[in-house]
């Protein structure tokens, strides 16, 4: 991941590459390739061997792209885990859910985000907001875990994703006649960094 950073250091540390960093400092980005060609006529650019594109945010946060889905959150019951209304969730379906994981579970046919806890061998779906009760499945009730949440993206005032509006589920599609999710509100409490992995200690 830090390849490009190192590349830059390496390049600037070498005196014969000085022109590279000078060219980069100019205001016109188009000047870069021209400067490379002109200054180093007959001399290959060292930087080009090192640079093969910036690191990818997707690749960094998604370990299993085939089984990872991005969904959005509607509701405030997971605020204690740093998951806010309107956040994007990264959900990996290939992971085996373990106690303490934030999971997407199927409750009454609806996809729901909760923390998975256990009381002995009995699973509990625990909201991270004292205003909501725990969900304890009955003995004969199957609990379907849809996927394990590996992280969430919480947009800050200007750093949010480009024009992602909270989607309105089509009424006929979800077949449950629920209203559109509540509009995203911007909490006053801030969390650091884009990927939030819970800003409160786990309760297990």
């Amino acid at each position, binding site marked *: 991941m830090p390849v490009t950073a190192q590349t830059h250091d390496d390049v600037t540390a070498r005196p014969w590459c000085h022109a590279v960093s000078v060219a980069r400092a100019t205001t016109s980005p188009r000047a870069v390739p021209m400067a490379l060609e002109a200054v180093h006529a007959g001399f290959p650019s060292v930087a080009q061997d090192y640079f093969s594109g910036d690191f990818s945010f997707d690749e960094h946060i998604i370990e*299993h792209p*085939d*089984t990872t*889905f*991005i*969904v*959005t*959150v*509607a*509701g*405030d*019951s*997971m605020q204690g885990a740093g*998951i806010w*209304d309107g956040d*994007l*969730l990264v*959900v990996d*379906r*290939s992971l085996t859910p373990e106690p303490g994981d934030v999971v*997407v579970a*199927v409750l009454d*046919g*609806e*996809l*729901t*985000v909760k923390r998975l806890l256990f009381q002995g061998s009995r699973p509990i779906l625990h*909201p991270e907001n004292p205003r*909501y009760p725990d969900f304890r499945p009955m003995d004969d009730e199957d609990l*379907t875990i*849809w996927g394990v949440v590996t992280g969430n993206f919480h947009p800050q005032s200007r750093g949010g*994703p480009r024009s*992602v*509006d*909270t*989607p309105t*589920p*089509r009424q*006929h*599609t*979800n*077949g*449950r006649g629920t209203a559109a*999710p509540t509009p995203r509100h911007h909490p006053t409490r801030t969390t650091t960094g884009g990927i939030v992995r819970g800003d409160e200690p786990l309760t297990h």
Partner: protein
Amino acid sequence: MPGLTVLADANSFFASCETVFDPTLAGKPVVVLSNNDGCVVARSAKAKALGIANGTPWFKIRERARQDGVIARSSNYELYASLSARMMSVMRTYMPRQEIYSIDECFLHAPWNAARTAQASIRMREAVLTGVGIPVSVGIAPSKTLAKVANHWAKDHPQEHGVTVWPRADDVLITEALATIPVERVWGVGRRLTRTLQSMGILTALQLRDTDPVAIRRRFSVVLESTVLELRGLPCIPDQPAAADGERTTQILCSRMFSTPIEGFEGIGQALGLYAQRACHRLRRQHGLCSQVHAFCSTSPFDTDHHYLSLHGVSMLPDPSDDPITIGRAAYDAMRPHFDRHGRYIRAGVMLCGLVDADVFHTLDGLEAVRDDHHLGAVLDEVARRFGPARAGVGYAGIRGSGRHSGDTGAPWSMRRDMLSARCTTRWDEMAVVHAS
């Protein structure tokens, strides 16, 4: 060639895809409808149990189906393609030499004995079910045709738990199974062949297997002879790795029905322009060039008040091309001289023929291919990727007219998909919602 052939095929793929992001559909009768919500093209197990046949026009069974609690969905091609790609990619990690045969099935090669192949298949099946949410059935046999039969067997017999292993073609179990399978269900035996075979007294897969292959070749074809040999466990059908990627060696076809009839050349030109660009997109994806552009349109054969019209024109390109402007204009020019302005057209299409591989196309100096040197095609693809389809295009291309009527084409005649589910994996504004309440 040692090893076994594995056929993995999703169960009711389109209906299963619909259930992934809408778990309320689990265990319910679900049908998926074709373009313009015309016919049933996929059914969940419950819908099959209700006796709904594939190809049934939706309007004929709509009332009855609603009473039975059947849930209908328009074809959500983007979702299906996305989940298919994920499913195929997961399976690729379990076995080598994947041949993707269609959107929901692939052949794999298992270089192991039967027990190990079965084990790997069970794990693969589990990984696709948990990781992507799609149930698949697996048939394992010495040849592709037998693997297909084994796959049907797995689907029809729940006690197989989704995996049927037939390691040896001479096994008694296989013989018994083949005796119960009607000949028309054998891969490669079409409806036309079925009738002739039946008239010869060949009614089951077993009878076909036990017919003399040489006689079959003389009476029918080498292809059907391979089927007989394959049923005997001799692999004869080679892999065609590129076919399911949409790679076509002879022609690329893009045609659609309209939700409302189009009258006049302006509307038809708009549709042709749009389809030419789509076909061109596929052509570029397979690094091809084309030398003929066909355009056609037709009125409804069921419209008894008007004459049935089916118009067709061809433009020959002076040099092979992958340029969307050249191809779009050729489609337009192909139709213009044949156009009848009195028709109410319900379908139009563009077909690219005379395909050559751009990488191997060389001519003398001065006789160059009309390539897309300005990279307009690449720019259009990028615009569509970033901003959605029909935001920019060549010519009419579906984005003109008063207001945008459809997110896909911008035009009022776009296909009707009234029961379309969210395109959860490809459109940001249709992302699945999980509830925190």
